[in-house]
Structure formats: C-alpha cells, structure tokens
C-alpha cells in the first residue's frame, strides 16, 4: 500500500511538473472527456517557416509591406547603362532574383568579389523583385537581355548598349569563370564592334556579311538572341546570297520551313508536291550545300542542319519504304550524336537512333509502357520482363491494357526463360493480332522470364500508354 501511495505521489509529482510546463494539456484532456474547456487565451502563434530568403512575411489581408533593399550594392540597369555611355566603358549587368532564387547568397558573394577584380566594366544589376516598371511583365523584359528566362544571367554590353555576350548557370557563380569570360569578350570587342558598325552603316550584301561575321564571333546562344544583327541580316539579304541567314537568320522552325519549301517544289511554287513527287534530291543537295559552305559553323548549328538532313531521309523512307534511306537516316543521327552528345540535338538523336534501329529492342521492366516505348507506324520488338509474376509452372494470361484510347497492334508473342525461347501462346498464331494471349509455363522456373512481342502503334502519343500484365490462370 505504501509502495502504491509512493507511486501515486511520484506520478502526481511528475504530473505537476508537466502541468506547469504544458498547461494547455489540461484543456485538451478535458476535451477528450467530452467537457469542452476553452483555453484561457489563444496560444501564442508559432512562427511559420518562410521560403528561403523571404524577409517580408505578411498576411494576405494586410497591405504589402515595403520591399527590402536589394542585397547587391550595384546600380540598377538603366543607371548602369547611362554611366557606361558617359565613361565609354562596357557594362556588365547581373540579372538576379534577390528574394526568390534559392542561391541568392552565392550570387551576392560572387559578385561583390567580382567587383573587386580589375575589370574595365561598369557593373550593374537587375533585381527581379525591384527592377520592373509598373505593369511590366517578365516576358517584355526578356528582350532586353537576349530573350531567355533562365536567371541568373550576366549580360555584357558595349558602351553604346550593343549586346556582346551573356553567361548563365554555373559561370555566373564563379569569379574566375566570369572574369575569364568577360576578358575574352572584351578582347574581341573592337573587332566585333567594327563589324557591327559596318553592318549598321552599309547596305545589302556587305551589311549582311558584316552582320553574319559579327554573329559568328558570338556563342550560338548569344548569336541567336542578338536581335539587331539578326534583323540586319534578314533585311539586307532577303535572297540568301551570303548564306548567313541559314545560320543566324532563322531558328530550327525556319530551317524546316526552308527544307519543306524545297521538298514541296520550291518557294512560290503554286503546286505543293506530295508523297513520292517531292524533291528529295534537291532538298538533300540544298542542305549539303549549306553544310559545305559553312564548314566552320557552330557545332550545334551543324547538328541542327544534319537533323534537317535526317528529316529528308525519313520522309523519303516513309514514302519509298526503301531500307537504304533508313540506313542513311540512322547514319545521319549517329553523326549528330558524335558531334556533341550533350546538346539537345545530341541527346534527342541518340534516342532516335534507338527508335530507328530495327535491331533495337525496347525492354519494359515495370509493367507499364508509355511514349518512350512508342513504335508509331513501325513494327518493333518489345521485351517485357514478367519474372515477378511467374512464380510456378502453370497457365498464364499475358494482357496489354491501354490506359487511353488509340490503336496498338501486337503479334508474334513468345515466351522466353533465361534468354531462350520457351514457347508460343496456346491461343494465338504468329500473325494473330491480339492483346491477350495464354502461355503454358513449364517448370521449374529459375531466372528471368520474358514475353517478347512485335508491336506497332497508330496514333500519336496518347495511343501509347498502358499496362502489361501476366496473370496466373486458375485451373
């Protein structure tokens, strides 16, 4: 009894301590018992974690608080450009987001450090939070720094405001990288600006050549965003005399427009040629001439035009079904990959190589097929790993269950165990087009079990997604 009393005493002692520390527990407990006891006063609000860098939390209903100053000490973009003009120096402007970009601190450190380097430029900033005029939208602003929206971005301009170069990604966070890049751009600035001046002051082919040569001095990314020079080029060389328009006057959409114009009988041609009547040889020659004329074109541009060539081969293959064109198509995509596998052209062409390679087999391991296994208008082999579904000998039903509409033809189902063919369906011939077949699996089952089949899809991407199921049938 004494022990029990002592236990109760201890319990009460602990309780008093907890009660004193957490008085709100009482009301919660009382509520549990059905007795509603309101807390004496509202508990103090717990601070809500804010998005990183957000220094100005405010409830929605309150008026917007005053915006804090930008964390960088540089003047805003218009003042920087003004000063650059006055002092006849190039300007280097960092476009950043002071209150929303997660790594703002890094930017601040890098750029304060960079401003201490001896660079003959006026450094300025465009703070995304503060830099907009009332009613102005980011889309409108993009034009002023080259038309892309991947902040942070550093933009170098000549004293008169002519766009010279830009840096994005990791470079913007590196003092030495930025310094090196700016120095290199400044070194070539006199030559570049003299070409720009020539492009501005002359007309016709001369102006177009000057603009084209100036654009060739820039990175492709910057060249394609240099509105002034591209405008000069397009205006002064309407008949493609210099060939530079094919490089800098158009993007990939413009290129395909040109290729299609040649394929379909030439620009201005009244009749649009179709099918086998299209001028494949001319289109091929047209692209080859451009590639030959500009042997030193940017690598990515070369990839672009080679992709254009592959497009002509593909159209020809569809029309003639002659395997020779598929071979050429594959070779061309492989060239694209070889030039640079890391660009979008390189990566895309690599996937297309797999698609167009008749020997390549799509392996599906997770039981679901989707657009990455698409076999549009072309029969290919699928290898579906069903090991997890086949535990013991018996009869199994293999099914293709589409998740959306769209036509998918499958035939020639085969069962493979450990890479060796182990049987055909009990209920379908090789050429029977079906989505359900039954296999007899004889034991013992050890190792990998696969169902192989040949598939063609007939719709766009919606037509190629669904489930592949292997289910044991009850006897």
């Amino acid at each position: 009894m004494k022990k029990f009393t002592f236990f109760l005493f201890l319990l009460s002692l602990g309780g008093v301590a907890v009660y004193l520390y957490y008085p709100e527990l009482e009301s919660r407990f009382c509520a549990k018992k059905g007795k509603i006891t309101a807390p004496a006063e509202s508990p103090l609000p717990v601070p809500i974690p804010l998005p990183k860098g957000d220094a100005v939390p405010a409830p929605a209903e309150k008026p917007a608080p005053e915006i804090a100053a930008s964390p960088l000490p540089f003047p805003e973009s218009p003042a920087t450009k003004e000063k650059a003009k006055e002092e006849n120096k190039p300007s280097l402007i960092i476009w950043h987001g002071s209150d929303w970009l997660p790594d703002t601190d890094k930017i601040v450190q890098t750029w304060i450090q960079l401003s201490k380097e001896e660079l003959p430029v006026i450094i300025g900033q465009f703070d995304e939070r503060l830099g907009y005029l009332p009613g102005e939208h980011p889309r409108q602003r993009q034009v002023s720094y080259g038309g892309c929206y991947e902040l942070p971005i550093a933009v170098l301009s000549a004293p008169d405001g002519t766009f010279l170069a830009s840096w994005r990604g990791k470079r913007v966070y590196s003092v030495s990288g930025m310094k090196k890049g700016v120095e290199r751009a400044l070194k070539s600035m006199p030559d570049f600006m003299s070409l720009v001046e020539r492009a501005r002051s002359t007309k016709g082919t001369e102006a177009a050549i000057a603009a084209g040569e100036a654009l060739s001095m820039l990175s492709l990314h910057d060249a394609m965003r240099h509105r002034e020079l591209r405008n000069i080029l397009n205006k002064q060389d309407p008949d493609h005399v210099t060939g530079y328009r094919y490089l800098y006057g158009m993007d990939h959409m413009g290129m395909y427009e040109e290729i299609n114009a040649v394929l379909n009988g030439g620009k201005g041609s009244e009749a649009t040629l179709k099918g086998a009547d299209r001028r494949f040889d001319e289109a091929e020659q047209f692209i080859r001439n451009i590639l030959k004329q500009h042997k030193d074109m940017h690598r990515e541009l070369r990839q672009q035009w080679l992709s254009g060539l592959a497009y002509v081969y593909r159209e020809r293959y569809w029309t003639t079904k002659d395997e020779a064109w598929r071979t050429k198509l594959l070779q061309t995509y492989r060239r694209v990959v070889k030039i640079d596998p890391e660009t979008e052209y390189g990566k895309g062409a690599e996937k297309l190589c797999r698609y167009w390679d008749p020997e390549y087999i799509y392996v599906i391991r997770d039981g679901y097929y989707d657009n990455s296994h698409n076999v549009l208008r072309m029969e290919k082999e699928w290898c579906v790993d069903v090991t997890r579904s086949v535990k013991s000998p018996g009869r199994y039903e293999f099914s293709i269950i589409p998740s959306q509409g769209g036509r998918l033809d499958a035939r020639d189902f085969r069962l493979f165990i450990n890479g060796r063919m182990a049987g055909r369906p009990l209920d379908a011939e090789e050429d029977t087009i079906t989505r359900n077949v039954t296999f007899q699996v004889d034991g013992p089952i050890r190792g990998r079990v696969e169902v192989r089949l040949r598939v063609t899809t007939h719709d766009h991407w919606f037509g190629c997604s669904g489930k592949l199921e292997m289910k044991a049938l009850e006897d």
Partner: protein
Amino acid sequence: MITSLRALFCGMLALGVLTPSPVSAQTGKKEESFGLKHLKSWHIAMPSKARAALEKGDYAAVQKALITNIKGRKNLPLENQQVMGICMVLEMLRCTSPEVLSAYAAESKSKATFLREFLADGEWLELYLGCGLVPYHSRVGIDVLYRIWKEDKGKVKNKKLAVALASVWGGGEIWKTPPVQKLNPNRYNPVRRYRFFCEQEKNGLLHKNYPNLRPWELRFVVGNPGQDWDDASYEYAARTIQMPWDKYDWACWSATYTGVSKFGDDVQGGYYNLPFSESSWAEATLRGGGVCGAMSHLGAVAAMSHGIPAYTCGQPGHCAYAVRPERGKWIGGFGGPDGGMHNYIFGNKAPTSYRLMETVFGDDEGISRAYLKSYCARAWEAAGAKEKAVDAWREALAISPLHPFFRAELHRLLKEQGMSAQECYDYLTHTLPLYQGHGVAAMEMTQDLEELIKAFSEEQRMEIFAMQHQALSTTPSSWVVKPADLLQKQSDMMLDFKSREKFLARVFGIHMNAEDSTTFGQLLEWAVKTYISTGSAGARIFNNAFAAAAASGDASAPMSEERARKMTSIYGKAIFAAEEARSAAAFKALTAGAARLGTNPPEYPALKNADSMPGKPLHAVLFRQSTTSSWDTPIWHSSIPTLRGGKCHTAKEARPSFIVELEHPTFLTGCIIRKTGNGSRMPRAAVYTSSDGATWFKQVESSNVPQEWTVRFPEGTSGKWVKLEFDNANSPNFAHISHFVVYGE
C-alpha cells in the same frame, strides 16, 4: 483535490498513458483540425457494439450499430464530440461503403489496424471528409492514406497533405474514377509526391502561404495527376524553374513556344516528344519546347512544385492555366484563368468552379461547422428521420448557403417529400437572393427544380427568372460562361410571343445596367441568334424588347435629341458588350440597329497608301478593343476596319489594344492604321497576328508610329485575327484610331 487530479492526468500523459496530439515535424506547430477549434486531435469513442464489429473488421455491422445509436437520440448537437464522431464515421462508411472497407481490412492486419486508427482519429477524419471531394465507393482514398501512414511509420506528419493526395487520387461522388487510376503507379505515386512536398517544406522552398493551406487548397498544389504530369515533373520543375514569387503566371515561358520540334515533327504528331520521351513531361517540354498545352502544364507544375495552388484549363482551341498566390486570388497564365478546369471540386466549369469554391470554403470555421451539420443530415437520413435530415441540411445551408452538394441533397429530400409548386416558389424567392455574385451557381441550383418551375404561373416563372438574371448580372462573368442554354429554356417556358418579348425586355433591362457587361454580351449573342436570325417576327421581338428595356418606347419612332443620345449610349454599351463576348453576330445586328439612329462617323481624308497596298481590304466580322471610355463611340467601331473609317477611344492603359477579327483565316499582306487626335500619345506599338485568337505572333513593331502607319507583313503570313497593341509602359495613356484596315489575298 482538483489540482491533484489534474496533476494525475498530466502524469499519465507524461508517462504516455494518453497520447498527446501529433506535432508537425516541419513547423513545430500542432496539426490543427479545421473543425471546431477546440476539437484538436481527438479520439472518436464508438459505442461498444460498433467497437466490437470494428475489431472484427465487419463494417456493415459497424454501420448498423451506429445507425441504431443515432436512432436513439433526439438531437445531434455539434458540441458533443462523441455524437459528431459517430456522424463522421457514418459519413465515412457511406462514402467509402462498408463492403470496400471490410474487404480492405481483410487484406492485411496492418491495413485493419490503420483503418481502426483512422476511424478513431477525429481530426484526421474531419480533414478527409472536408476536403471537397471524398473518394466514393473506392478503396483508392484509404489506400493512399494507408501508404502514407506506413511511410511515416504510423504517425502521419502532415495529415492535410495526406488527405489532399487521397482526395485527388481517389476522386469523389461526382468524379468516381479519376484518370490517374489507370496510369503507371511508378510515375504517379502519392507517397513520392507526399515526400516531395514534405522535403520542399523542410528546405524552405515553398511559398510562404503554403503552411496555411487547407486540404481543399492543397488539392491544387499536389495536382490532379491524371492531368498535371508525373512526380518527376514536380521534382524537375522545382529544381529548374525559379521565378519571383508573384510571377508564376509567367512560368510557362520558361519553355520555348514551338510547333515544330528540333527534328522536324509537328507538335500534334506522335514523334514530337519521342526524342525526349525518357524524361519527365516537364523536362521534355523544357528541352523540346511545345505549344499552349505543354507550356500551360509546365507553368502550372512550376507553381505547384513551389507550393502555389494552380490548375490547367481547356479553352476552345487553346490551353491555359491559373495560379493562386493568395487565397481567393486566381491569376491567369497563358490566357487563363477561364476555361474548363482540369482539377476541380465543384465541376470543371470556370469561373463557376473556382469562384464558388473560394466562397464556399473561404470561411474555415463556418465551412467546418456546415460540414458537421451535413454529417448530421446524412446520419438522420440513414436513421430514417428524413424530416430531421431536411432540417439539418437547412442548418448546414444557413451556414454555407452556396454549397452545391448540400443544396442538391436538400432538393432531393424536398422533392421526395412532395414539395408543391407554391412551396418551391417560396423556397426559390427566399434562396435566390443569396446567390448575388454567383449567378452561374444559381443557374445550376435551379436545374434540380425545373419540373416544379414548369408548374408555376407565368408571372411566378417570370419572377424567378428575373431573380436568376439578377444574380447573373451581379456575377463577375467571363466569355467562357454561356448562359444560352438557360435563356433558351426560360424562353421556351414562355407560352407566346408576347410573353417572350416581355421576358426578353426584362432580361435586357437587368443586364443592361450590370457593371460587368460580358453576360449582357452573351445575352445579346443568344438573342440575336434566336430572334434576329429567324426572320422579321423574331427581329421585331428583339427590337421591341431592346427598346422597352431602354425605357424609351418604340425604337422606330422619331427621336428627341435626348433620347437619341440615350439610345446611342445604350447601343454603344451593347456593342461593346458584344465585342467583349466576342459575338460577331450580336456585333453585326447591333451595329445595324444603331445605324438607324442616323449618326455617322466623321468624314476622313482617304488613306494615302490604300491603293498601293498588295492584296485587298478584308472584310472584318468583329472589331474589339481592350477597354472603353466616355470618349468612345462603339456604334462606329464597325467602320474602323473599313476604308470609310470610324471612331474609338480606349481608357488610360499601359497597353491599349485593338483587334480585328476576319471572316476566315487567310493570307495577310499588311494593314493600314490611322491614329486620331494627339498621335504623340501613342508612339510605340506592335502589330500581331493570330490563327486562334489566343496565341499572338509579333509581325512588326515601331517606337515611332506615324499618324498613318502602313504595315507590310512578311510573305506567307496568315491568320484570322490582327491585333494592334500600343505600349505605354512608362505612363499609361489613351489610344484612339480611326482606321485599322487589314489587307490580304
């Protein structure tokens, strides 16, 4: 003694005999029930019979025992937690069904334990049932919760997020099988998405309003996976697309707008995405570009991955999206927020769905009490006490009068009880005034009672229709809302031409003076189609009704100066409304009607380059402008796209614009624009063309627009719409032109 008992209780708590409420790992804040504030993390105590059945996993028996318990009660007070707990469990059983729950519990011991814990957790159950849509007769919702419960080892850290995921994955009574259920669970995995948001929150990468979002709001953050892309897209967008917090309505432009891929494939074809198909949708779009569909989804997923509610929506020939940085404030991206929402609670008809949703759920405390009342109503009905159920529904609606599901349930029961036409009339005259500002909801609400409305007298019908239109006229509307069906139905219920004319005059009168003239425009479009296009008798009805609405007698009678001015103003308003509604038919009919007023635009000198322009002036079916002002003369707008010239005047704007809509898409050679008055007001402008009226391509821009501006388009330019947009970004100003003549082949 009391103090000692308190101390004893607390001691028990300290020793873990009683379990305190869970605490959010991220915020350190107690997970807050959005029900009655004092009902934080509470245990539902079930009657012994129900408890025994629950132990056995026999949910039909649980339901039976709980109904018996309700039958033995005289009332169901909200303050009594035990009773509320029983009502909530009953509602859960009704939604999910005892069969589904029994089968689920039978699958494993762990699942049975989870279900018992879930049904005993008042806070969690309340969050689940109050999420907007509750998965109906489906195991999906509880399975999502179970998987998250397992992930969090039996102590779910973020119950609000968990129920939002369960809700979008599982659908609801009006959306029984969301498409996600057919998709690859490895790409659309609620647990992965749950982890993603917990991680984002932990790292402080979500919008500052995220921690305050309720489950119904979180539905628009976690996204509707059948539409809003895969888990990897969320992760990729969070890493890749960083925008200023208030500019996610522009996030779509992170990708390149391109209809042809880098490999020459059209965006509508199957090969477009093939080169990037092994990436997430977001990555494929950022790498390969896209058009409105992919870009809008990208914008939405970028916002959602940063904790900002968003949805994508379909428009005719276009796709758009909307983001919501603050409660109630939906901002359109790429032409949104209007359109058919791909993620919704109250149907997919924007703006009804999002505006109604914001109003219904806007008051946290109120909606939670209304939901508790609704569970009482369901419980009474299950117990056979339909009168009490009706009362409870009325009480729920007294708190949340616009909740469409509650309203539908009340209507069902009232009809079952044999509501008479007179009772229905009384009910509607009492209820419809509550729908001010929610006219579309009022339209939808009365649909349930259509048969009874048919039995009203003509005067009663007219009165109810007028009330509906009164609600509509106070509703901020949109071109997406088409009240034509309602108008047609109402008109069909009028017995003869005279009544129809009276009806039309009444409706015209209501909408004519509305602040938002879009619905007026829609009304005009319908009226023109229904009456003017059908012949002279119809045209007479239209004209008489229109004139009567203008309170000026017969429109064809000779007019005083005062009346002519008034009519000009009314026609002007009507024409501008037709422009806003993009109704070419109403624009044409009203312009023709206004011509009878006998006023003509000023005589202008001929355009200098009219003859030298290639092609010929094209016939425009509609001219519209971004805003109007007291200096505007909409009755002369139709002359602006002609060589004759007209007159128009916008309000002070940063970017005033004018749009000419042609009859057909065609090849365009250029246009001639003539400014009027102080041309120096409008030095900067650009001309755009479009094939869908939504996606615009800049053809030319100038920072020094001359008084008469002759624009030549690049060869091969085609389109159906041509837009002139002035750019006064530095200082908003007016825009006024007399000519905007489009040339083409």
